[in-house]
């Protein structure tokens, strides 16, 4: 770990101002991802701005009938909120399928969206990795890539985004509210939040340097049956091989987002029209243009079969 300086701020404005003052700074929230990466020198910020105690820890109703979730709401609190459990069950189910109780007690809404990939080569600083060291190559291509992306990947990077929560947020059409260094606020639909790896896999979101996430908003509830099926080799405490988050209405229509298949929670709205016809056409639409390796091709049938199981479960 490189030496760094540290400050704790008490307002969003102070956070972005601190960033402007100290180039090379990073925000730190729960620290459950950033600190691990700093110990391995994958991230080497010279200054940490602790935003974990900002008063962004409330879940409030919005005028539109939805919810505004503060950026610092802990994953545990979000999952157990009565309104979330009642109206956005998919979110609760996705959250509790992730990490462990202790981690969820620390992890924040903003930090969860911004957690970095679990590609094992990204974690080994001896290995080439375009995401960690732009231009060095991608060790996962041609290496151990059973866990890697099948859609949206590039010749520079085939990493997946590991978040469970983000899959639910995507299906729920969440928007991410931010404020930048100049004090300008904006709301970014989650569909536009993550950047495709292309030639620059180290750039993962559309956030500008120093732009602070303040909240995530959910539109008003859409009803339906909410199911999150996370498929993994062991029963708990593992990242998804793939996951399916679905909201299915009585008439068989609905929404589906996937985890563990691409650089972002994967949703193709056009494919959802086929939901009443069963899993296959939806999976085909979701995974159109998929590129697999010798080790991760199983993810394509796995998505289809898992989705079929989810739809059967939704029917009850």
């Amino acid at each position, binding site marked *: 770990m490189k030496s760094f300086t540290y400050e704790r701020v008490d307002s969003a404005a102070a956070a972005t101002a601190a960033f402007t003052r100290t180039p090379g700074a990073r925000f730190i929230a729960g620290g459950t991802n950033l600190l691990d990466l700093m110990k391995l020198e994958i991230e080497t910020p010279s200054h940490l701005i602790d935003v974990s105690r900002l008063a962004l820890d409330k879940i409030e109703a919005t005028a539109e009938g939805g919810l505004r979730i503060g950026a610092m709401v802990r994953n545990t609190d979000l999952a157990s909120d009565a309104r979330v459990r009642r109206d956005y069950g998919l979110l609760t189910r996705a959250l509790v399928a992730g990490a462990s109780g202790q981690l969820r007690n620390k992890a924040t809404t903003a930090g969860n969206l911004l957690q970095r990939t679990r590609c094992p080569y990204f974690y080994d600083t001896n290995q080439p990795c375009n995401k960690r060291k732009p231009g060095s190559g991608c060790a996962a291509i041609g290496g151990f890539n059973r866990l890697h992306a099948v859609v949206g990947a590039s010749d520079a990077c085939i990493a997946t985004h590991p978040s469970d929560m983000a899959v639910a947020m995507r299906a729920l059409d969440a928007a991410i509210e931010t404020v930048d260094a100049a004090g300008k606020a904006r709301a970014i639909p989650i569909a536009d939040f993550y950047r495709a790896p292309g030639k620059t896999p180290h750039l993962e979101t559309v956030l500008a340097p120093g732009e602070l996430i303040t909240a995530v908003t959910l539109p008003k509830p859409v009803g339906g049956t909410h199911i999150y099926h996370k*498929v993994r*080799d062991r029963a708990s405490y593992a990242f998804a091989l793939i996951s399916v988050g679905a909201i299915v209405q009585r008439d068989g229509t609905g929404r589906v987002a996937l985890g563990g298949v691409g650089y972002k929670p994967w949703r193709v709205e056009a494919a959802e029209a086929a939901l009443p016809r069963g899993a296959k056409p939806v999976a085909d639409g979701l995974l159109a243009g998929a590129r697999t390796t010798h080790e991760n091709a199983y993810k394509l049938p796995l998505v289809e079969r898992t989705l079929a199981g989810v739809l059967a479960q939704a029917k009850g």
Partner: protein
Amino acid sequence: MKFDTPATTNPIDQMKIVGKPTNRIEGPLKTTGTAPYAYERHDVAANQAYGYVVGSAIAKGRIASMNLDEARAAPGVIAIVTADNAGKLAKGNFNTAKLLGGPDIEHYHQAIALVVADSFEQARAAASLVRVEYTRGKGAYDLAAAIDTAIKPKASFGTEPDTAVGNFAAAFAAAPVQLDARYTTPDHSHAMMEPHATIAAWEGDKLTVWTSNQMIAWSVGDMAKTLGIPKENIRFDSPYIGGGFGGKLFNRADVLLAALGAKASKRPVKVALPRPLMINNTTHRPATIQRVRLGATADGKLTAIGHESWSGDLPGGGPETAVAQTRLLYAGENRMTAMRLAVLDLPEGNAMRAPGEAPGLMALEIAVDELAEKVGMDPVALRVLNDTQVDPEKPSRPFSQRQLNKCLETGAEKFGWSKRAKPGATRDGRWLVGMGVAAAFRNNLNGPSAARVRLAKSGVVTVETDMTDIGTGTYTIIAQTAAEMMGVPLDKVVVKLGDSSFPVSAGSGGQWGANSSTAGVYAACVKLREAVVQKLGLASDAVFADGKVKAGRRSVALGDAAADGELVAEDNMEYGDLAEKFQQSTFGAHFVEAGVDAMTGEIRVRRMLAVCAAGRILNPKAARSQVIGAMTMGAGAALMEELAVDKRFGFFVNHDLAGYEVPVHADIPHQDVIFLDEADPTTSPMKAKGVGELGICGVAAAVANAIYNATGVRVRNYPITLDKLLGKLPDMV
């Protein structure tokens, strides 16, 4: 004491304390976090500095240049140790690759430097400033690609690479039912909780290391050889060990580098291996490719048994002895086994819990299941039919005791085996459900083991031996042994372990620790009893009970024998040739029920039962813990554990506990263990055997067989992950 004739009745047979389910005597220390593990021994030496290991970034080749300037200039740095400045170092007998590499690199993350600094953070930060240029060499990393170059290895630990009895080829060719199948098992990591860790300090030319080590005397000897100093100048202290599973049988880089770092910095130095180094810097269980051929009559009698295994290791290393159990497990007149060894430039392969049998049974016990199906017989019945009471390769040698059939039959009854349906026929909602069985087999090994016992005026008995407790419960069984022998309650016994200044024990490994170390304590207690009766002037048949020594009408408090000074006795248990006359092994049967999600192929174990026949069970509570832990590890081997090899760069990619998955609680819903009531007089006066490794043997195959029974899909390559089932599961509804 020499043990060369079968044991007769002795004080242990009273079983007032031995054989009773007993809580760990050191348990409260562990549950309250006050048992001092190596890295936490802040009190043993003042002014400890921190060492951080730099591991090689390449798997094979040379260090072209190494620049230490930036690291030296970093804050807090006291010293940097490299092969260039460490002086002459030999290689330990138990090490295949050097613990400190350079300029030649033998494997990925081989230690090439230790940076010592005032704080851990400073040492770690400076370690990343050591600038190394490498010249990559060409290495071999792919076992499947290397088996054509594999050679017949030398015999190791008395295990010959090849055996043959009768005419296997002819009998197999003539067999009405034949099975010929290939199985693979991957590289496994011990993945124990406590990393390798050491604090080292020098006083003049005397070295003390506080470390985490299973085999104290071996490791003292190896460190003396490596450093080129007399054994007498080295003291090891390892009272608490947070798991080892074979990963701590030998010295690793932490011990050597802490010693060198302490010398260079003239301060005590502590070193722990971070997780990634545990996986690529230390040892692992090597992957195997195995071919099993079984020939049988139409009614299931084995006539031909063939088992071949290929594994790889660094030059100078040894094979994974995966055919070992096949030499002994089933009857059959014509047999062959063979092991072949390829050179692989991956990290060093070595012992992990039940080396040989664990991966060997993963293959053999699927093969037996496959054969049973071909014959059309129940796999329990087929195993029972092919039981042998003698060593099948040397029929003049009987097993000392062998109740494999009783394990199988008891287990079948208790588990509800008769409810097992044909493959793919049982459903529970979305789950396909099946049952599997496998035999467990692991040899019993005894080793010489010494102990010292002290009797104080207070009646307290103190045992000292360099034996280790690696989380198995050794403290407790040693206390039980001494209490039984001296006729005192458990709380009147103090046990001190893991210090090389104590008498040399058998150590912990190969499931030899429990029987061997308690036999050593037995021998020392026999001597102490003699000293007591002599001191008290009692008849030699005096009875030791209730804290008293009684002979005829006289009854004296035990402590009185030490009224004018502590009584001390020491002895070493040594063994004659009973282990040659009798084949001493441990047996078991594993039963598993598994569910497979018909849609996703996710596999979850639902129930497990082990029935074990392993001699006298000294502490049923600790033994049960050992077996359920081993069953859990076996489930891991079946379903998830695999070190993923990067065949281009030559290393294990998933080198942390996020990537190398071992079972969590949710994977293990229900486990049961039954011990058959046994006492084997040929093993030692304790009449015990080992059990800690038996528990893992066969488990993975029982899981594999349950998955087959659930789905009708036979997977012969471990781990059995859902991607291997997916294309073959029944069509979706």
